[in-house]
């Protein structure tokens, strides 16, 4: 809300949003001890597997580690176009 007001009244977006976003990412990686590069290769592999069963929109795949209340979750949103015809 504050941010909205600040924006409406023309002041720049506060740096605390950067701080918060960076911290969230940082703490997740600290906790799972997985580098962003490793996360990327995990993402590629998982998408590869999903792609064998359903046709997906690879560009809009959302894939990230999130933390709330100290618990880490792998949160992913994979838009499906259609099921791939089974090659049986």
């Amino acid at each position: 809300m504050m941010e909205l007001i600040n924006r409406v009244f023309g002041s720049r977006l506060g740096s605390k949003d950067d701080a918060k976003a960076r911290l969230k990412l940082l703490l997740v990686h600290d906790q799972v001890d997985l580098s962003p590069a490793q996360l990327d290769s995990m993402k590629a592999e998982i998408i590869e597997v999903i792609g064998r069963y359903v046709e997906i929109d690879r560009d809009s795949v959302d894939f990230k580690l999130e933390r709330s209340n100290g618990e880490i979750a792998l949160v992913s949103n994979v838009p499906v176009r259609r099921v791939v015809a089974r090659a049986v």
Partner: protein
Amino acid sequence: MSECIVITSGKGGVGKTTTSANLSVSLAMMGHKVAVVDADIGLRNLDVILGLENRIVYDLVHVIEGECRLKQALIRDKRLENLFLLPAAQTRDKSAVNPEQMRKLVEQLKAEFDYVIIDCPAGIEQGFKNSIAGADKAIIVTTPEVSAIRDADRIIGLVEAAELPEPRLIINRFRQKMVDRGDMLNKDDILEILAIPLIGVVPDHEDIIVSANRGAPVAFDDTSVVGEAYRRIARRVSGEADVPFVALQPVGIWENVKRWMGLSAKAGV
């Protein structure tokens, strides 16, 4: 029922010693018998913040090595007869003490005092391990900055792994003005990230430096808003429920307008 509380942070310079001194003074002013231990061996500071540096004869390492009795090393604060400091050794290092020795020392202190407050050194090595060894509870100090919060998170993990139940958080050097313009993480942002209970917010304030210059912790000053923040933390520490957060001063017309419009988060210490 006596209790040992360690004040820790991971990152250096965020306010552990300032917090230890002021929490101890505040608890003693409430009538509790308090011993505050400087566990920062080799970099002793708490004596200076408390204004007791000229009265040190023996220190923590002397006690542990059996060169003096505990009573001989404890320095009684002349302003508060139920406040005592156990100073750190200045010419030794952290390896002069081990966790088992600290545990025994704390046990001895707990037999005499209502509260034993331990001022932990920065870092996660020996000094930290010594400091948490005898503690029943932990208070984590952080500032509203990315690096301090990151380290606090790491320390919370270590404290929990050491089976100290439910660490609580003090946010130090809080600047309402910067929060109001969106340039500082606010209370809720930090709590969302660290997910431990808050026990106090201490404003960034000149009074801290003035009181450090004088060797008289700001908690002694009943006209100071920072002093009040510490006194309220002490009330929460001693188990008083629902101690209200003190409203921080409005910082300008624009903030007042936002507050009047009900748009600003309620500020408090």
